[in-house]
């Protein structure tokens, strides 16, 4: 058994989880302070990746990141970095589909944050950054954790957009998901099932870690 998909999946899911964590939280933070109409519109736009078939999401990403389109061309020509058909292309795919999960759950948590904690930090002279990371985030831990778990799971399971953007090149861009799919389609169901178990193990570890974290902080 070639363990590359495990390692690749883990790094893609982990990195995308980190990215989604930050971007989702910042989006949630700034949007939760906006007016109702703007909030509604942004909500619709940010939830869009959820309501489209992932392959189409991948296609739309390709229209941005592909070497024939401005962003992709810029990276390729000036930085000599190819954004697609690489292992890290899977990150873009995973980020796009798991972002709405983090965003929505974090926004809910932020909207129920007790502002007196923030005010109290301000009057003590703490910078807003410090307050955000050391006061607001720990206080909203429950919601943020739920969002992170969902995003991580979604990243791990992401197939459609990844296959479009990163392709399936064994040893290069294969993730557990694309491998499972490939093995299953080529009638190697036993092997596919083994990889399903690997995914199961990963999520078990992550979920248990999260449960422990929740517990410890109580």
């Amino acid at each position, binding site marked *: 058994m070639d363990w590359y998909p495990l390692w690749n999946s883990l790094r893609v899911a982990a990195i995308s989880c980190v990215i989604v964590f930050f971007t989702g939280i910042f989006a949630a933070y700034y949007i939760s302070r906006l007016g109702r109409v703007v909030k509604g519109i942004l909500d619709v736009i940010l939830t869009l990746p959820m309501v489209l078939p992932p*392959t189409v999401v991948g296609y739309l990403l*390709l229209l941005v990141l*592909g*070497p024939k*389109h401005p962003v992709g061309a810029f990276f390729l020509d000036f930085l000599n970095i190819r954004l697609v058909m690489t292992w890290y292309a899977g990150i873009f795919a995973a980020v796009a589909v798991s972002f709405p999960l983090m965003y929505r759950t974090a926004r809910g948590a932020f909207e129920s944050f007790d502002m007196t904690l923030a005010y109290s930090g301000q009057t003590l002279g703490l910078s807003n950054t410090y307050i955000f990371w050391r006061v607001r985030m720990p206080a909203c831990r429950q919601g943020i954790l739920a969002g992170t778990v969902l995003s991580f799971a979604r990243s791990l399971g992401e197939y459609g957009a990844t*296959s*479009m953007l990163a*392709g399936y090149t064994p040893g290069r861009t294969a993730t557990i998901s694309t491998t499972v799919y490939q093995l299953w*389609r*080529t009638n190697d169901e036993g092997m596919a099932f083994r990889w399903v178990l690997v995914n199961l193990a990963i999520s078990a570890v992550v979920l248990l870690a999260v449960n422990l974290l929740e517990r410890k902080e109580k």
Partner: protein
Amino acid sequence: QNTELTVFAAASMTETISKIADIYTEAHPNVTITCTFDSSGTLATQIAQGADCDLFISAAPKQMNQIDINGGEDNTDGADFVLEESRIDLLENKVVLVTAQGSDSGISSFEALTGDKLNMLCIGNEDVPVGAYSLKILEYLGTSAQELEDEGKITYATNVKEVTTQVQEGVVDCGIIYATDAFSAGLEPVDEATPDMCGQVIYPAAVMKNSENIQAAQEFLDYLTGDEAKEVFESVGFTPLS
């Protein structure tokens, strides 16, 4: 009385079969045709799992063999759905090599796939009919998918559209697809596979054994081999075989 036909057809035939079905139902008002389009592999799986299907048109013999008791080694779990006497080779397609418009990769023939010019080739996976042919072509050229995998020069797509998109967007240098797919995607083939590279590319069609409308299905299949249907098939680049 009214008969309802369920046709499972490879996604690459979406336009043609839809069009022919429309013409056919106009002439036969007592028949309604319901088409399901997907990758041949998905359709074969669905039939194997008991989906109601009267007529199956696959984009390669392999997927038909999977559900045909006489399908040889492709049939791994003894599925028996094909009404043997109805199975025909309906169409022939060509396997072509495509590159993006204005590509500067310098790949102009299948032979170039073995050289240094190739950065990334996209083929369908084994489950996509053209994928199986692509693998044969690679063998013929004296290389193999495994070899290209080791060099990181190959990527597998789930369906033909993925291949064409990736070629069009310049994400890969070139891809191997059917001539008809190249035609509808507006891609210019740079090379066409000869029969000795991968054999003939056959689209088999067959009536399903447990169909409740075997006769009507057979009639429609016969119609598909007729002249009106031929015209439609040829318009997108298929070669009708019968």
